[in-house]
């Protein structure tokens, strides 16, 4: 029996059916824990109480959604460890992304958590300028940024009275695509450990940094890394849901590749006849 060449719409219909089924009927797929994710988790766990962690970078919200799985779990861990965070957005949508993760993690007092704005966490405004913004922030935070996102002078915020420059930053978490800027101006120039909750497509691009700066740079791998971090912290979320549907989708993807090759080999004789 010859397999016909499938049209794109047929393939899209099959993929859509797979997603509808996996989104409505969770299969609870299990996955293995990675050593790197455990290392990151233990690094955050070992930070002394009151340590200041910066969360920031530059990219687009939709791409960064993949990092939100790890970041939301990490925020809960940092709340549990009584760490303090400063969100430093260098992208136009980064302010919205940071707010989304903070709200979703429920760490703020107004959402049932323990963190108080200005004391435990601060949201800086968008800082344009690319590399210049990172360098200015590392040199002197209060000169680089005068107010927080709401217009409150930084000197009026208790947390920012203690955080003045790069020497007061204990770690930097990047849940955005542009991790190379963090490596260049935060890790390499200022010796601040960098954690990257990488998008899967970005992991392959930036993994050389993990090899070039061992013990200073760590990376998780996409939604799978997010699911692992959620499992470590015990807060199932987007990462766990995605890994579930990916379990079936991966087989479907490979299945279509095999089907395409079978179709090609079946039609090979006809193609050779046409060529002749």
């Amino acid at each position, binding site marked *: 029996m010859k397999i016909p060449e499938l049209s794109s719409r047929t393939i899209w219909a099959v993929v859509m059916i797979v997603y509808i089924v996996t989104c409505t009927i969770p299969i609870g797929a299990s996955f293995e824990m990675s050593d790197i994710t455990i290392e990151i988790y233990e690094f955050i766990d070992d930070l002394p109480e009151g340590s200041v962690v910066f969360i920031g970078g530059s990219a687009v919200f939709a791409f960064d959604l993949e990092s939100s799985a790890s970041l939301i779990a990490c925020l809960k861990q940092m709340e549990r460890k009584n760490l303090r965070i400063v969100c430093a957005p260098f992208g136009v949508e980064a302010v919205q992304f940071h707010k989304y993760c903070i709200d979703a993690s429920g760490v703020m007092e107004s959402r049932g958590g323990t963190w108080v704005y200005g004391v435990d966490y601060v949201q800086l405004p968008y800082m344009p300028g690319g590399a210049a913004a990172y360098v200015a922030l590392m040199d002197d935070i209060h000169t680089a940024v005068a107010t927080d996102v709401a217009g409150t002078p930084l000197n009026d915020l208790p947390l920012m009275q203690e955080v003045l420059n790069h020497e007061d930053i204990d770690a930097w978490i990047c849940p955005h695509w542009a991790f190379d800027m963090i490596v260049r*101006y935060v890790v*390499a120039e200022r010796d601040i450990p960098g954690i990257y909750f990488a998008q*899967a497509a970005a992991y392959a691009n930036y993994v050389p940094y993990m090899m070039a700066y061992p013990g200073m740079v760590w990376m998780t791998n996409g939604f799978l890394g997010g699911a692992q971090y959620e499992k470590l912290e015990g807060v199932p979320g987007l990462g766990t849901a995605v890994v579930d549907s990916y379990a079936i989708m991966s087989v479907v993807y490979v299945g279509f590749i095999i089907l395409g090759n079978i179709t090609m080999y079946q039609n090979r004789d006809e193609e050779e006849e046409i060529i002749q």
Partner: protein
Amino acid sequence: MISTDPWVWVSALMTICSFSLLYGENPLFRFGEYTYTAIVVAHSVVTGISTLQSRFAPLISGAKPLLIIPLILGLMSIFVVWRRYAWIASFPIAIMIGVGTGLSMRALIATEILSNIAAVIREAGLILVGPPVNSLGYLIRVVFTISGLFYLLFTVGHKGPLNKPLSYLREIGKYAFLSYLGLSVGNAIMQHSGLATSAISRLLGQWLGL
């Protein structure tokens, strides 16, 4: 149970508009496309207004009157949209290019070049140390990096006695890049699959309550 939150309905409408492209070009998709463009542009302006208030607060309060210079330069930079007066924008752009290039030059040398070369040398020293899997890994790293560099820097073959051995090195580099591209595409499948899951699960879960 179907949601009664109007924002969930807006979100569902946007998702359907976007996915309607799978059926074909249609007015729903155009509606979604123009909505996206409009909000991206408008959000940039809203962020810009908020950022201006933050960045020029010291000028307004009188703490730093020197900021009048970047204010004027910034206003000059807007002239880039008019072809006839675009030359006015070349002065602030020159400052941005100068600062950006200086900063990237010092960073590129340290992080992209020197640290990677140091890593290759370090890994070359570890090839004969440790378990076989790790040794193989280090060997692959060193060989693929060097051959990949050869392929990128000497893509076009040169005449001479070294051409044949170097062509083998270039060929290895080509296969090194093929493996990199194949692995990164395979890894990226997870990303897009996850985003589709997020969109569809929001449609089915939040909107339809399934």
